[in-house]
């Protein structure tokens, strides 16, 4: 298998398969989850401003009172790497170009050095997140193969992406192909692992905020 063929494959067939599975898989999972429905609540709700499903969708991103000090790393590292991923995926010039090719949409990018720095910070933070998962008793106790696999699947695109832009490790062609492949693997596995939380957390937070909001409790 030569590098060029491989690269062409991942860019075309591979991409189609991966995006296909990602889109169909995600749509299926969301359908599978949300069509289960829930019973209507017959109790008379309270109406307190600031207490609703919509509010909680966003407010839940803020650590509740007293929680930050209990696990500061969870919050800080969590935010940093998620934010880092977002910046790299959506604000890197090459990625925006790809999205434009696929959808026609585009927006301004951030300078390459900034993305570089973000990638380094993200990688370092993800390493910290893994160390935490292994060291902290509760996280270790809860962790399954799926958690570690998800970590690898998320790390590889960032790592290979960084290596590509820096022309490190393998030839540019190989590295780029591997980067695209790793992104495609991530896409394929998002619907079928905990990574689906990217989509379902909004629904979960909404339900939670709604149930509590009807009682007048802003969460």
């Amino acid at each position, binding site marked *: 298998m030569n590098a060029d063929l491989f690269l062409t494959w991942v860019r075309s067939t591979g991409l189609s398969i991966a995006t296909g599975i990602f889109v169909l898989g995600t749509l*299926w*999972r969301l359908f*599978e*989850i*949300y*069509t*289960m*429905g*829930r*019973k209507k*609540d*017959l*109790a*008379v709700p*309270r109406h*307190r401003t600031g207490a609703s499903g919509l509010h*909680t*969708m966003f407010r*839940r*991103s803020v*650590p*509740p*009172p*007293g*929680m930050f000090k*209990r*696990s500061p790393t*969870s919050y800080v590292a*969590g935010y940093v790497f998620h934010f880092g991923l977002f910046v790299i995926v959506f604000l890197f010039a090459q990625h925006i170009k790809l999205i434009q090719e696929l959808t026609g949409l585009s927006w301004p990018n951030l300078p390459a050095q900034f993305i570089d720095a973000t990638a380094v910070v993200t990688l370092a933070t993800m390493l910290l997140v893994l160390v935490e*998962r292994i060291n*902290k*008793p*509760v*996280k*270790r*106790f*809860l*962790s*399954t193969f799926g*958690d570690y696999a998800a970590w690898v699947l998320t790390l590889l695109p960032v790592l290979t992406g960084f290596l590509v832009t820096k022309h490190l490790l393998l030839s540019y062609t190989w590295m780029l192909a591997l980067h695209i492949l790793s992104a495609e693997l991530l896409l394929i596995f998002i619907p*079928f692992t*905990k990574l*689906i*939380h990217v989509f*379902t*957390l909004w*629904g*979960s*937070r*909404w*339900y*939670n*905020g709604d*149930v*509590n909001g009807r*009682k*007048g*409790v*802003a*969460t």
Partner: protein
Amino acid sequence: MSASLQKGISVLKEVIDAPIASYFSSCVHCGLCAEACLFYTETGDAKYTPIYKLEPLRRVYQQEYTLLGRFAKLLGLSKPVTDAELEEWKPLVYDSCTMCGRCSLVCPVGNDIVYMVRRLREGMAISGHAPEGLVGASQRAVEIGSPMGIRLPAVKAQMKHVQADTGIEIPLDVVGAEYLVLMSSMEIINFPEYLAAIARIMKQAGKSWTLCSEAFEATNSGIQIGVSDIAKVLVQRIVDGAEKLKVKTVISPECGHAYTALRWEGPNLVGKPFTFNVLHILEVLDGFRNQGRLKTSGFEETKLTFHDPCQLVRRGGVIEEPRRLLNLVAKNYVETSDPGKMNWCCGGGGGVSAIEEAQELRFEAFKIKKTQLEQTGAKTLVTACANCRIVLEEGLEHYKMDIPVVGLTETIAKYLVEVP
């Protein structure tokens, strides 16, 4: 698979809905729920992590409601839920969970873990894996009318006692009264001061009220054990009583789960909206205060603090009322750390105080309340749930702390300006 296990799993399948599906799909194993749970924070034992308590339910969800899960089950690749596992989970789902709901408030992806525990208990109970103490309480609740075995003569004896104490006649079965007052067995047995306080406050406020001979019990053991059918029977009694006496409002007493059961789960259990209002006694009192019907004189001078009953505050939404009421009669009221909806559970709710085997764990979990109280330097602890009250007293006694625990309604009544 035994018949009862089959029933249990059937029930679990029935109770799983879109929210539960969403919650299980969203969990990223961050473990923050453990940091909110007093059973973990005070013991350091990771098995008390809230989301872990739900493992059997999660697998039922996966195996029954996800394509991949069903496929795996078909291929014999999935791990079935067994009687042995449910038995192993019994202390996790019951002994170490008071359904306080703190975990649901902190999960970053929004999981309502306490809701799922409540549902898992349905399957646990039907399959015969609920603790003996709760089984007994629920049986008594259904057959006798009270989880603690109180019958009407006992209620009448209490009424007589309170009549003598206050000089006020206690109304029974008065049709057309504005308020139907319910009591919890705990109050009937342990705290006659509650009824006395109600009598005096109602007299001053000039409001008509009544007890109901067929529905005096507010406690809902069905909720605690997790059998909706039992919970429904208990709520229906109250509905029947309230409709028969044509009252406008039913007052839920100082009992946490009674309020949750009646106000929030009630209409859903009986399948239709109520034709009357449901208010917690503190909501009623705060209403009176607002209308100027609560005339008090004098203040508690000692430093006092409030324990927020989980089912009332965090899970019930009655957050500010206790504070407004306390400020009416207290000069030196201080909040604990994490006050209001984030407050820490007494450790005995959700049926835990009825489980003998859980006592040692309960005392360990109590360390958080102990710390909170020590930090406030308070000399008196006020609360608004009869079960919290006893659990707190026991915890304080265990740690040799000399802080009296009193009920809020009774505290208000203490400072009432008596109308002759």
